[in-house]
């Protein structure tokens, strides 16, 4: 268990560095540390499917962030101190911590979940679907609606990015043509 706490400390340190550091490249690398530590935690908790997906998506996200932010000058605005805002922030953070402590005390202990509904899947997945990988049989057979929703979310995101970026590109092309004419 001690390695989990070390990795959790690394993640928190990476997140704090990513917010506080002024250099954009350093911030992106710190975000990458958070993702890598999370992937190793998934691996230690015996979830290789999620660990693989996490590390692969993290690589893509870091590359996209570097390529999208590095050559662009983003003005850093320093916001002034707001005593009322800071007071309300601390107040709601404290309320959230109290609510979390109350909630987590009433849950089953970590590593021993309530297996009332989900017990069916590991027992029947191989004979029911023929897939050795039980995770795959759940996300693509028993809970395929979830995968459909996830695919829809990604589809919408891609369409949004393509649409937003395309309008800029097309406008520029027209400008170039007008200049030539």
């Amino acid at each position, binding site marked *: 268990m001690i390695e989990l706490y070390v990795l959790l400390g690394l993640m928190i340190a990476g997140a704090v560095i990513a917010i506080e550091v002024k250099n954009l490249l350093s911030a992106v690398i710190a975000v990458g540390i958070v993702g890598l530590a999370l992937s190793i935690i998934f691996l230690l908790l015996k979830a290789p499917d999620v660990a693989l997906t996490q590390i692969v998506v993290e690589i893509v996200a870091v590359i996209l962030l570097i390529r999208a932010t590095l050559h662009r000058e983003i003005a850093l605005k320093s916001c002034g101190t707001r005593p009322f805002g800071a007071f309300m922030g601390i107040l709601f953070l404290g309320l959230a911590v109290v609510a979390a402590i109350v909630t987590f005390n009433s849950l089953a202990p970590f590593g021993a979940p309530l297996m009332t509904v989900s017990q069916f899947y590991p027992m029947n997945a*191989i004979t029911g679907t023929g897939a050795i990988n039980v995770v795959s049989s759940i996300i693509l057979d028993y809970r395929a609606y979830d995968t459909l929703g996830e695919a829809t979310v990604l589809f919408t995101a891609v369409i949004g990015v393509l649409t937003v970026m395309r309008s800029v590109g097309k406008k520029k092309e027209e400008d170039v043509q007008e200049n030539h004419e």
Partner: protein
Amino acid sequence: MSKEHDRGMTVIVKTVTRLTVGLILLYGIYIILHGHLTPGGGFAGGVIIALAFINLDLAFGGGVSAKIFSKGKTSVVEALGAVMFLTLALLGMKYGGFFDNFLHPDGSAGQLVSAGIIPLENIAISLKVGAGLFGIFLTLIVLQKFESEKK
């Protein structure tokens, strides 16, 4: 020296990329096709395949992979993956319900050809995810090119 040698990273990076990009692509295909047997699946495998193309782009300078796999093609392939996934779901309606595993009796558990429509769904998701992420990457590069030309 031709024009291609001036762009991108150093010769070392280009040589290593030339050697490894095929292996990365092969690993992605393996992850997809064995999604019902080993950890992984359509999502992770699709992202690995997109990463192989992104790797080419980073090493050889912008626009190399766009010649192999243009932005229009990514849109078509992504839509094709979505349509394939929905078609598999709708075909199940004939046999019992939405997302019914109608091919299940084919093959025995543990074989590559088994688990009914789950491998096919993995392939559909990989097409969708890989083409979608690569399309996002291409769009950001294209936008950057326009902005650098403006300056």
